[in-house]
């Protein structure tokens, strides 16, 4: 009986996560379409969202890490889009190599996806597969997450 309840709870957890990601996908697509006339693509893709509530040092560090990853020819990164309200942190490399989507009002912070500091959204086959907010002590994991 206990095992049955545990299995039921686990199943409910999985279903709720899946529903949440579906809702995020729907809202994020609606936003991309209305603001930039685009949608989540079929191929694997990474969206980096710059939050207004951020540690500026973290953002600089994350962008440096991404530049390193882009420069590393041995790695095959998914395509990266950067959603920003202030492009002042973006280097020439990032402006050339990434798709920069500029939204001065940072409306992407009000889609129901929790954002702070740097939020990374991974997508595949036109769907959001995971989201992650980089905490102050986890800035270095950005390389692992985007690979």
């Amino acid at each position, binding site marked *: 009986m206990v095992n049955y309840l545990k299995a039921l709870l686990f199943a409910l957890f999985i279903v709720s996560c899946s529903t949440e990601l579906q809702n995020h996908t729907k809202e994020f697509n609606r936003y991309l379409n209305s603001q930039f006339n685009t949608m989540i693509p079929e191929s694997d893709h990474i969206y980096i969202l710059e*939050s207004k*509530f*951020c*540690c500026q040092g973290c953002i600089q560090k994350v962008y440096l890490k991404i530049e390193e990853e882009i420069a590393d020819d041995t790695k095959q990164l998914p395509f990266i889009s950067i959603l920003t*309200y*202030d492009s002042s942190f973006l280097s020439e490399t990032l402006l050339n190599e990434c798709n920069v989507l500029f939204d*001065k*009002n940072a409306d992407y*912070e*009000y*889609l*129901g*996806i*929790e*954002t*702070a*500091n740097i939020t990374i959204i991974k997508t595949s086959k036109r769907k959001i597969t995971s989201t992650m*907010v*980089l*905490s*102050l*002590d*986890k800035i270095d994991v950005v390389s692992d997450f985007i690979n």
Partner: protein
Amino acid sequence: MRWFTLCSIGIFFILSSCVQYPHNKNITYEVKYEFHFPDSIRSLHLINQSSEMHDKLSWKAYYQQLHNNIVYEIKIDEDGLSVNNSNLILSSFYFNTIIQTADSVFTFENGINELRLGNDNNSRVKSFEIEQKYTPVIDPFSSRLVRSGSTFLIGNTSKVIDFGSKEGRLEYYKKIKPIISLNITNDRNSINELGHFPNHYRESGNNYIDHIPSSCITEEGLICLSFFADDLLYLYKDTSLFSSKVVSSQFIDKFSSIPDEKRFDMLFLKKYVIEEPRYISVKYDPYNRLFYRIAKHKWEHNHKKRKEYQFWSVVIADSNLNVLGETRFTSEYDMNSLQPTPFGIALLRSNNSMESNASFVILKLIY
């Protein structure tokens, strides 16, 4: 036994009704001046002024627009209100700059132990050194560079004490005097450290992300300190505590601290900063000899839609820190833009990148 229980419940209710938050007199206001900016002018940040009294018939202040670094001058005189591009080039930000005149700009940069005097071309004219034994800092979240006459106030912190742990904070609150007073009279610097953290900070070691208090200076040279999560205001004469009194908002009933295990969690910190009430700053009005304590109320955080207008208030106290009343505003008014003028208090309205009707207002408080 039943009689005893009933009495106990009765006494409990009587005592409960006696414990109440202050009911400050409600102070209203009327709009005395209003200037609607053109669409290109919004998201302005007030650059602090020297707090001594200026001419009672004219007033001016500077505001920085960060994304293009344009500094606007807003002026009121016998000809009315005018807004102009000052053509000033600032090397730094609104929170660590004080503009004395158009070609006399004081700046303090974190990490460099000096106060810098520059001209309108951003060239250095002079610098005033701060000894290396101090760790001066301006934290845009809580403090500003403050000036009255030849005295400047800058935050003071520690390079060695770990503010992240409870043990560290207990030591920090006990050892650090959080304000440096720098006097530059006759080209000779004199520096003093002053201030003490509130007793409940020192006893609990709690983290309210508050390591630099807001400060201001009266015309008598008294220095007033206000902490985020403390109901008292503190007045210092030189480096000694002169008086302290409760100057609290009727809209704030308690403060929560940040658990140590959450201190790196940006989602938690974002929610904490948006939701928790706190005393943002204290300003001195030399024209009316009043203190204005700005209180941010408890706000709701909603990541699904932009917040509706929320509330903040100004607690008004006389020069002896007696509370005269409180006036409440919606967040349509920018609480960081409050500045006393001879004509009333200056505020910016709808001052954000989303709205197209930003304006500058002077409000007259009605007692």
